[in-house]
């Protein structure tokens, strides 16, 4: 290979700059960027050469289920926001606007798959049968986790952005080794092939902001190198708190997959049918060991980043209005009604179910437990640790002194109303 095979680096100044600028302009936010969409904002179902086949697998019951899930999680979001405003939660991270991206992808996963969320995936949690009240523990300050990931294969929320992406790839590398160990065992024992467990894949969520983190890059390098069965699911909700996607990337995020050597697809993140189809395709591909996949769900965070955020400081209401017109629930409702797949009774029932969930959450929040610092002592290490034991012993002795005082106080204030 001679030097003639190398691309030229001799730019002749402005012309090359202009050319690059034009290329950048051409892709930035350009609607011409290929995006898989099946259900348009007007509620009509389009076609796609690859993904229509996947959409065709969905019967009326499943489509109604998608709607019910999206409505339920939106109602939950409203309730959690209210609970934060009432001081029951320290913080809430709303998902409104991203229901289709989360329900569509979560419903495409299978029980044997393992999911690594970031911290806004309440909709995915719903699809993995996580008790939604348990999701609130972290935001109420009674746990840093809240559920046992082994019960649902839905990992804990991760707050250090993108830190969960290499975990997902490592988990997928574990699945690869499980399969080889199982094959070796089956070979050695002559076991029937029917006893083999179904193939699994890993799906990891992150956002447009987190896409700038080095861990996303390193994970994608590892995933590609080892052909790990992992699907990277990026919800591009257009805003990383106050910073727009254009600051994170100058090309569509889905294009980045090319640089790693696996497929990247942009899907309309407000189209639950397309999200489900694309994710099902990607997970099947990963489970079959064909390659990792990057999915960019093009969506929008309609509300604030968290309850501590104020979007009016950094974006216009016109932009929000544009995206509200692409609402994921409205378009599916239009479709279901137009096709005669759901009637008023169905939508009334969905509303009633949402209210029931909200009531459940409101009722349960007081039962989420009062944490005891002894639990933190107990869980710092899995095995006995002398320093932890010593500090706990000191703490017990120190607290016992106050217990005596408290008893004395109680004796003095007999009959008084205590909190």
């Amino acid at each position: 290979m001679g030097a003639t095979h190398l691309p030229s680096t001799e730019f002749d100044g402005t012309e090359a700059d202009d050319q690059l600028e034009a290329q950048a302009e051409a892709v930035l936010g350009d609607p011409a960027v290929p995006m898989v969409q099946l259900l348009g904002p007007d509620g009509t179902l389009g076609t796609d050469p690859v993904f229509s086949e996947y959409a065709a697998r969905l019967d009326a019951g499943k489509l109604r289920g998608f709607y019910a899930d999206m409505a339920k999680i939106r109602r939950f979001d409203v309730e959690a926001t209210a609970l934060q405003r009432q001081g029951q939660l320290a913080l809430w991270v709303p998902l409104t606007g991203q229901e289709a991206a989360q329900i569509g992808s979560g419903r495409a996963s299978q029980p044997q798959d393992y999911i690594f969320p970031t911290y806004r995936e309440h909709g995915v949690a719903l699809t993995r049968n996580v008790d939604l009240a348990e999701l609130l523990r972290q935001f109420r300050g009674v746990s840093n986790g809240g559920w046992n990931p082994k019960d649902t294969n839905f990992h804990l929320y991760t707050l250090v952005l993108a830190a969960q992406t290499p975990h997902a790839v490592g988990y997928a590398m574990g699945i690869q080794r499980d399969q080889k160990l199982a094959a070796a065992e089956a070979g050695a024992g002559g076991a029937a092939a029917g006893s083999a467990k179904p193939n699994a894949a890993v799906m990891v969520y992150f956002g447009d902001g987190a896409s700038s983190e080095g861990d996303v890059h390193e994970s994608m390098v590892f995933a590609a190198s080892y052909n790990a069965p992992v699907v990277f699911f990026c919800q591009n909700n257009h805003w990383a708190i106050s910073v727009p996607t254009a600051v994170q990337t100058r090309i569509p995020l889905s294009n980045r997959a090319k640089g790693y050597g696996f497929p990247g697809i942009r899907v309309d993140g407000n189209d639950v049918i397309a999200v489900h189809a694309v994710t099902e395709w990607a997970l099947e591909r990963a489970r079959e060991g064909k390659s990792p996949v990057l999915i960019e769900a093009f969506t929008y965070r309609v509300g604030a980043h968290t309850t501590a955020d104020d979007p009016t400081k950094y974006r216009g209401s016109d932009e929000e209005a544009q995206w509200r017109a692409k609402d994921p629930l409205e378009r599916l409702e239009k479709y279901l009604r137009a096709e005669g797949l759901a009637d008023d009774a169905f939508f009334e029932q969905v509303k009633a179910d949402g209210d029931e969930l909200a009531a459940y959450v409101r009722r349960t929040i007081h039962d989420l437990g009062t944490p005891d610092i002894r639990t933190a002592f107990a869980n710092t290490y899995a095995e006995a640790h002398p320093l932890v034991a010593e500090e706990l012993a000191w703490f017990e002795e120190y607290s016992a002194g106050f217990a005596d005082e408290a008893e004395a106080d109680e004796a003095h204030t007999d009959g008084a109303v205590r909190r």
Partner: protein
Amino acid sequence: MTTMTIAKAINEGLRATLSNNPRTLLMGEDIGPLGGVYRVTDGLIGEFGADRVVDTPLAESGIIGTAIGLALSGYRPVCEIQFDGFVFPGFNQITTQLAKMHSRSNGNLTVPVVIRIPYGGGIGSIEHHSESPEALFAHTAGLRIITPSNPHDAYWMIQQAVDCLDPVIVFEPKRRYWLKGDVDTDTPGHSADPFKAHVLREGSDATVVAYGPLVPVALAAASAAAEDGHSVEVIDLRSISPIDFDTITASVRKTGRLIVAHEAPTFGGIGGEIAARVSERAFHSLEAPVIRVGGFHMPYPVAKVEEDYLPDIDRILEALDRAFAY
């Protein structure tokens, strides 16, 4: 009983753990056909294959991060970080993820990841290849940190680290990789507990606590002090987190004087922690303040002056003189 170097002992320890548990695997840069830059993993890829001795992309955060995922899926990954100064790209994964996973999952998840880090100076190397960052990790709850000083401990400690349910960082004294010693591969014997300090030499006038690469230096200083009529006890700390304060305190109650020596800078270091705890536990036994011997508060200096930076026999003797002067 076999005689081998520390590097070979770790190699044999890794071979044993790979043989005993099909879910143990090694990960790191250049650990495959090359056998690692220090050849600690030499020959293992040939024996156990590329799925269990994994040459990784050159990305420390990726190595630790994927090891966490492997541990979550039931594996026992042993990561090699090529040099002490290169652990920092993986620092976030170690401190915010690995150390906290068990705690934040309320005990539901364990992440038994082992991280091997060759550390310390004295090898005439270039920048970032001679550091001792152990205190940064010791300050992080959730991690365990051990450091062998001899081949027998090296052989057993790496296996004990793999068997531990908690994440363990094994700091390997790279300038002692070629130190030879007897290894009993049949039984750990008195090294059964990796988190316990060992009294290597008994004495009655002063105690020197050292670990890793400075253990032979402390022993030599004790021999030199003996020539001057001072009986010096030497403790090999072995575990940096947790620290075996019982063994140290018992020794200080006997000798009344304590010197702590490490290559890492003294400010904010392990020596300071030991001094504080011993002053709380054995204040009335102390005949002199606890004296620290360690690196200066500066980036690890260039190789041509590292001899002025690293604690040596004379620096320990000078500290002993100061302690005896009280």
